[in-house]
């Protein structure tokens, strides 16, 4: 049997296994991105990580610039893949240390993870504008976890 025939078998079996198992087995996957129904009455939940300064003020983070190779959504997924509070907090602590090592001249005092459970009535282009998003955050934001000094 030629090597390429063996590779055909690997591709077929690996793809089938990942699909049946409904999980990623690198480099095989069932490619589930965007496959769930995302409409009312499903929950509408967002998360956001913000930094806090030594004066206690909150500051937005630009992950792609400040903590590559992450960008905002990839970091949120990495943070929440195991959602137990102690694990999330441990990850936030480690990220804070990592951030401050990279940005020694302007370190952060802490990191906070906010959760937003929005009603579907707020989910429309007129409401999700950059100006209004702060108001939505204030109204629906709930502190989910924060780093400990």
């Amino acid at each position, binding site marked *: 049997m030629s090597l390429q025939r063996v590779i055909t078998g690997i591709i077929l079996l690996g793809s089938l296994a990942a699909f049946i198992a409904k999980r990623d087995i690198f480099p095989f996957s069932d490619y589930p991105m965007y496959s769930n129904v995302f409409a009312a009455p499903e929950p509408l939940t967002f998360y956001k990580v913000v930094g806090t300064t030594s004066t206690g003020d909150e500051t937005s983070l630009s*992950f792609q610039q400040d903590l590559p190779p992450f960008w905002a959504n990839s970091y949120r997924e990495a943070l929440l893949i195991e959602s137990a509070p102690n694990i999330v907090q441990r990850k936030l602590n480690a990220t804070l240390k990592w951030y401050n090592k990279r940005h020694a001249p302007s370190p952060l005092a802490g990191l906070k993870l906010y959760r937003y459970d929005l009603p579907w009535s707020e989910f429309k282009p007129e409401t999700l504008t950059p100006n209004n998003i702060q108001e939505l955050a204030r109204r629906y934001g709930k502190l989910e976890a924060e780093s400990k000094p």
Partner: protein
Amino acid sequence: MSGATKLALVRIVFFSVLFSVRGTGPYLRLWSEVPAELWHPNGLLTFIPHAAIPSQIIDWLFEFWRWTLPLCALGLFYRWLAPLNWLASFFLFNYAHSFGYQTHTYMPVVLAGLPLAFSRASDAWSADSRLRPAAQNADYDLPLFNMRLVFALVFFAAGLSKLRNGGIEWFTGDTLRNYFLRASTIYSDVHSTAHHLSINIALYDWPTVTRLMAVAGAGLELLAPLTLWRRPLTSLIVLGLLAMQIVIYFTVFVNFSIYLALYSCWLPAVFEIWPRGKSRD
């Protein structure tokens, strides 16, 4: 166009795309700086603790990987370098997928690189072919078929997952329309060009159009296996999927540029379809 030149064309484009998309920037190397607390291994790395992979190893592997990409594109010492390059890519991308975030855009490219790396893709249009004659009776078709098999299975699985996880409601409801709008919020820090055009916001006012887009997109994904057999449909489905991924970039803000390496396996089809190209065999 002979089998050797078809595979050579794929080799040149595949490795050139990888080099230009991920070989010129530090993305893969930067994962070695991520704290161990975020380690969430996947695939074969499940069996290796984070501490057993020093960051220096990732740095060396990355440098080896990226500088052997152009050599593979040129077809220099291909039979030795391409398998080693593939092993390095397998490890580096697996490592990058071991911090809790799966991009899904790199997996098919790594997998499609396997048949190419272990093929005789340097028997034409290469430095190697200047140094030694091409092998007799070499199989150039099966590596190409295997790459196309990866292509077909990836899209088919994505279509099937929508049916399995979302059901008919995924197509008849507002799911795609809502994903379009959500992208503006959760992907606010990436792909500024796509944000600037705001096509996703404009489409929110056209729910019937977004439902038709959902049916057309998932339909194309489910038809992907036909590309392996039905020649007249192949170009339509492949071009349709390419168009779909361009639309996804402007509406859901997912960048599929590395998929161009995967699409390279269809380039020889241009010569298979055009009679002029065929007569040159």
